[in-house]
């Protein structure tokens, strides 16, 4: 497979748009709520390499609070890439090491699809109660 680009390597294609992209930022919001023994970290927006470190720090800090249960809520995510998969897999490993039950509120189809294609859907337990903590 070489595609149309290669057929015209030495012959620039006609363009309808040329230049630098200018788009509004599509960041990630991280909300943490806690009740005795449990906590929820809710992600909304777009999860990629620009936000992965902040989200990872927030989850790892939560897992180290000595809680019994941590719920990761992906239902507000519009987009997630492989850095989001790493965030979840590392969170699962930390939770297991610390004896914390980690479960997910799954996201929409685009997020589920990435988890499915990455082969990690079965690693995560679905949260018993998807409602937000008080």
């Amino acid at each position, binding site marked *: *497979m070489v595609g149309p*680009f290669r057929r015209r390597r030495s012959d620039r294609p006609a*363009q309808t748009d*040329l230049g630098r992209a200018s*788009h509004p930022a*599509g960041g990630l919001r991280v909300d943490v709520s806690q009740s005795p023994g449990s906590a929820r970290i809710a992600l909304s927006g777009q999860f990629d390499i620009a936000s992965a470190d902040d989200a990872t720090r927030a989850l790892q800090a939560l897992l180290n609070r000595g809680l019994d249960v941590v719920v990761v809520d992906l239902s507000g995510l519009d987009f997630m890439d492989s850095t989001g998969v*790493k965030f979840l897999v590392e969170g699962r490993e930390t939770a297991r090491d610390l004896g914390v039950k980690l479960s997910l509120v799954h996201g929409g189809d685009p997020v589920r699809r*990435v988890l499915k*294609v*990455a082969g990690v859907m079965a690693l995560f337990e679905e949260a018993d109660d998807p409602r937000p903590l008080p």
Partner: protein
Amino acid sequence: MTTARWSFDATRQAPGDGRRAIQQFAGEAGATDRALDSVAVCVTEAITNAIVHAYRHHDRPGRVEMEAEVDGDSLWVRIRDQGRGLEPRLDSPGLGLGLPLIAQLSASSEIVSPEQGGTEVIMRFDVREQEEAA
């Protein structure tokens, strides 16, 4: 046939900028929601690869070029950098899932190491892509 071209600094903001640009382009070409989701993940992963592999040892961010072309029901996207290529790293921020996700979510893909250096990821998508039957 419609084409467009963009150029980004290889920073952590570039995958999001590229994703939003290609989604707008593909959306204007009539791509289905499913196709838009596929393109978003694959473009994000390809640009992220350029950031974390190609320019890993550079003091200043290099450039990532993106070119797109709609030809019938096919959307072709090329991501190109001028860096060191897909250098393996054990601390990959996406668990090394980027290329497998591209392979699974695009209709076809190819990685090229041009004589002049750098790496090109060429991907084709079906703009009429529909969800698989359950």
